[in-house]
C-alpha cells in the first residue's frame, strides 16, 4: 500500500507535466491562428468603423448609388425611397408597379445601369402578381424585372422587360438579384418558388439565372435558345433561392450565393448552360429533417465553391476593389440574415481560402455593396438602416 502511494506521488508530477504539455501545445496551435490574424499588416474589424447613413426604412432590401451621392433604396413592402445627405426623404418615388408583398415577396433589388450617367436607366426586380393572360396559378406571382428613369420623385419611361414564368401561388424563393456584365447583358437570379423539381425543368424559369439584353430582348447566343421546349432566357439552372449575385471586377465571372435547405447554403460561380444540381445534389437536408438527396456530387452537376453548414442565410455580397480595403481586394464580403453578421471570404482564383466573421450582431443583412467612395455599405432589414463601413482614421 505504501509503495502504491509512493508510486502515485512519483507519477503525479509526470501526469501533470503531460497535461501542461498538451495544454500548451493546444495553446500553441491556437496562437498560430491568432498570430496570423494579428500580424501588423492585417486589416481587421478593429481597424474599421460603422456609421449609420440612413435610418427609418421599413424592411429595406437593396440600395443603389446615384451619381449625386443620393442613395436609392427598395423597401420590400413596395416603396422606392431616396436618401439625401444621410436623411431619408419622406416622399417616396412614384411609379412602382403593384408588388406581391407576402412571405419573402415584394419589391426586391435595384441596380443602376453601368452607363447610368448617360442613359439614366434604373433596373428594379420585384415579385409580380399574375396578370391576365399570364401562365400559372391564379393569385400566384413570380419575379419580374423592370427599368425606368428617375425624374425628381417619379419613375418615368417605365418598361417591364422580363417576367419569370409560370406564376406560382407560394410565398417563398423569388431570388431577384440584378447584375450587369458591362458587355451589354443583364443577369437576373430566380428562385424555384418552393417547387424544387422545377429547378431542373428548362421549360420553366424557376431556379434559374437568366441573361437578357439590357432592353429585355433575348440574346441569340444564350445556351438553350435552340433546345426544344427550353426557355431561351435561361443562362444556368438547378438553383434554389439565389439572393446574392455579383460580378468579379477583373475576371468578369459571375458569382452567386443561394439559400439552400438546412445546412446547404452555397456560393457558386455561374457559367453558361451549367446545372448547379438543386435538388439532385445538395449538402443540406430539408427543414423537416427529411433527406432531399443522398448525393452531394454527381457527374455533370456543378459543385459549389463553398457551402455553409449551418446555413447562414446569405443575402447580398460584393467583391472588394477599394484602395480603402487594400488587403481585402479581390475578396468577397457576404451578408448573413440568420446570424446577423458579415463574412469576409478570402478569394484566390476560383477558390475561397479563408473565412472571417465581421461585425457579429450588426443586424439582419439584406444587401452588401461597395460604394463609389470605396466604402462598404450594408442594408439592414431589422433596424431599417443603411450603414457604411470604412477604415478608422
Amino acid at each position, binding site marked *: 500500500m505504501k509503495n502504491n502511494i509512493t508510486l502515485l506521488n512519483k507519477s503525479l508530477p509526470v501526469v501533470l507535466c503531460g497535461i501542461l504539455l498538451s495544454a500548451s501545445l493546444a495553446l500553441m496551435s491556437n496562437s498560430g491562428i491568432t498570430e496570423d490574424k494579428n500580424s501588423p499588416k492585417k486589416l481587421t474589424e478593429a481597424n474599421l468603423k460603422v456609421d449609420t447613413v440612413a435610418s427609418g426604412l421599413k*424592411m429595406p432590401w437593396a440600395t443603389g448609388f446615384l451619381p449625386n451621392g443620393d442613395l436609392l433604396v427598395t423597401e*420590400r413592402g413596395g416603396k422606392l425611397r431616396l436618401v439625401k445627405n444621410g436623411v431619408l426623404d419622406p416622399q417616396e418615388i412614384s411609379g412602382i408597379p403593384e408588388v406581391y*408583398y407576402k*412571405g419573402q415577396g415584394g419589391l426586391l433589388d435595384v441596380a443602376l445601369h453601368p452607363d447610368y450617367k448617360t442613359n439614366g436607366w434604373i433596373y428594379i426586380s420585384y415579385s409580380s402578381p399574375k396578370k391576365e393572360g399570364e401562365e400559372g396559378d391564379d393569385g400566384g406571382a413570380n419575379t419580374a424585372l423592370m427599368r425606368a428613369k428617375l425624374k425628381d420623385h417619379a419613375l418615368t419611361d417605365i418598361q417591364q422587360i422580363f417576367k419569370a414564368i409560370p406564376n406560382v401561388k407560394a*410565398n417563398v424563393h423569388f431570388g431577384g438579384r440584378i447584375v450587369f456584365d458591362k458587355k451589354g447583358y443583364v443577369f437576373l437570379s430566380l428562385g424555384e418558388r418552393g417547387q424544387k423539381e422545377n429547378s431542373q425543368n428548362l421549360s420553366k424559369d424557376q431556379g434559374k439565372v437568366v441573361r437578357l439584353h439590357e432592353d429585355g430582348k433575348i440574346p441569340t447566343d444564350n445556351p438553350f435558345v435552340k433546345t426544344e421546349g427550353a426557355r431561351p432566357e435561361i443562362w444556368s439552372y438547378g438553383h434554389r433561392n439565389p439572393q446574392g449575385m455579383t460580378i468579379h471586377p477583373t475576371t468578369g465571372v459571375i458569382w452567386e450565393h443561394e439559400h439552400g435547405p438546412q445546412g446547404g447554403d452555397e456560393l457558386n460561380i455561374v457559367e453558361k448552360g451549367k446545372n448547379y444540381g438543386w435538388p439532385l445534389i445538395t449538402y443540406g437536408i430539408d*427543414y423537416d429533417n427529411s433527406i432531399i438527396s443522398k448525393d452531394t456530387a454527381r457527374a455533370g452537376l456543378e459543385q459549389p465553391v463553398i457551402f455553409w453548414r449551418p446555413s447562414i442565410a446569405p443575402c447580398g455580397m460584393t467583391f472588394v476593389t477599394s484602395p480603402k480595403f487594400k488587403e481585402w481586394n479581390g475578396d468577397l464580403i457576404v451578408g448573413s440574415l*440568420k*446570424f446577423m453578421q458579415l463574412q469576409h471570404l478570402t478569394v484566390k482564383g476560383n477558390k475561397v481560402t479563408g473565412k472571417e466573421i465581421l461585425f457579429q450582431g450588426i443586424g439582419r443583412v439584406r444587401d452588401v455593396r461597395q460604394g463609389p467612395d470605396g466604402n462598404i455599405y450594408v442594408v439592414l*432589414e*431589422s433596424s431599417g438602416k443603411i450603414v457604411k463601413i470604412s477604415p478608422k482614421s
Partner: protein
Amino acid sequence: MKKLLFLILGPVFYSATLADQDDALAKSIERGKLVYSENCITCHMGTGEGVPASFPPLAKSDYLIKTPEKAIYAVKFGLIGKIKVNGIDYDNMMPAPGLDNNEIADVMNYIQNSWGNSSDKKIVTEKMVEAVEEKK
C-alpha cells in the same frame, strides 16, 4: 314529451357541435402546417426548436402558451427587439410574413398543437386574429 325529446336530443346536438369544433381545429391545424412550412420553418425549424441565441423556440414556449395574443400579434405585424422565451433573452427581428387572417389563425392552431404543445382543444379563429390591432 317535448321535454323528453329535448333531454334526449340536447346532448346529441351538443356533442355534435363539439365534434364540429374538433373537426374545424383538426382541419385548421392541417392547413396551418403548410403555412408553417412555407413561412416559419427556416428560422423556427421543423420541430419548433428554433435556433439557439437567434430565434426562439415555439415548442414548449412559455411566450406562445401563456400569451397567445402576443404570438398572434407577432405573426400579424412582425416583431422587433428584446423578448424573453423560457427565461432566455432574444434580441432579433421577425419580418411580418404578410399572411391573411385566416392563414394566421391556421398557423397559430398548428404551432399551439405541435411538438408537445396543446391548446386544450381551443381554436384560434379568423375573427380573433382580426381583432388584434397594431400598436402604433
